[in-house]
């Protein structure tokens, strides 16, 4: 099915829950109301004409400069049966973003949703094991949000380099000691 037919099918089934649409792009997408995403996911996987049996990617995106500012979760879908692709998007508020999990439809979403939670703090309600996947368990904050500011320390280790560290590295270079000290063995052979 082409993107237009997929959109018509979704619009016929879910009506105004399909809030926005863009079909004249490389990867056509629709915007789905956040509370409906689990039902839409189950529908597009089960429907014999759509049969999106593969969730290729689930990503979070932060748009603080949009009006109103928003967070997005993007689902890239693929069908091994019909060999077509489609994209679902969900708009969320930047304060306490939350939406239902699609883990019940595509089990691969388990790790993807944990990653979106890890980096953006998006809460997937109903997720079986929602905890950080890449960052340490005791990490505080959501580092891929655009308003992220590096902490001074993490467990006693400096995160932001100080002026002193910068000067030490450069001074080492000047006297040929430290991180930048290296002359290949044959470099001055001809001099």
């Amino acid at each position, binding site marked *: 099915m082409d993107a237009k037919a997929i959109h018509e099918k979704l619009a016929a089934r879910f009506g105004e829950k399909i809030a926005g649409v863009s079909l004249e792009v490389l990867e056509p997408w629709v915007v789905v109301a956040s509370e409906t995403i689990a039902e839409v996911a189950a529908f597009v996987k089960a429907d014999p004409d759509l049969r999106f049996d593969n969730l290729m990617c689930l990503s979070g995106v932060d748009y603080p400069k949009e009006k109103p500012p928003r967070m997005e979760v993007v689902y890239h879908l693929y069908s091994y049966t019909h060999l077509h692709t489609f994209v679902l998007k969900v708009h969320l508020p930047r304060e306490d973003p939350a939406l239902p999990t699609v883990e019940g439809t595509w089990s691969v979403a388990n790790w993807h949703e944990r990653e979106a939670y890890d980096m953006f703090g998006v809460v997937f309600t109903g997720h079986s094991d929602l905890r950080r996947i890449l*960052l*340490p368990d005791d990490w505080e904050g959501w*580092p891929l949000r655009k308003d*992220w500011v*590096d902490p001074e320390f*993490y*467990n006693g*280790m*400096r*995160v932001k*380099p100080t002026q002193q*560290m910068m000067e030490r*590295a450069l001074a080492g270079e000047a006297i040929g*000691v*430290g*991180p*930048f*000290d*290296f002359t*290949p*063995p044959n470099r001055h052979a001809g001099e």
Partner: protein
Amino acid sequence: MAPITGIIQNKFPDAVVFTTVDQVVNWARKSSMWPMTFGLACCAIEMMAAGGTRYDWDRFGLIPRGTPRQSDLMIVAGTVTLKMATRVKRLFEQMAEPKYVISMGSCANNGGPYWKYGYHVLKGVDEVIPVDVYVPGCPPRPEALLYGIMKLQERIQEDRVLRRHPESVGSLTGATLENR
């Protein structure tokens, strides 16, 4: 006991060889630096190449070990994330003395490309463990790593085991043993 055979058999007169204990100990140490099998990022690929047949660090006496208890050398090859830094420190502490550290590549030296925006990267592994030799590059070629290993061997050869400490030791940094 089976007789010793070979081209040097029975070729030498009775003789005595003089050397210092330090010389022998340092020669043994620098000729059998066993590194820990341990890679963190793309630098580890170059490290593997240095250990492979083409560059063959076995000729320097480097035999990778699977445990810190048997290792003399830690080659920190790659990006040290904050999450990994605690593990790196623990592995270093589990190694037996004498132990040496080579920091390989820009990331391990000072954070490299993550210097400014790497919220998750330690800005130089020398923030958590003492480093003997820094090998710059992104990543360094195997020749560069071998050069770093030879520099470390030079340094070990100058080390003092029985002899009293002079004002400074070490050909690379002039650091004293106490503050190394």
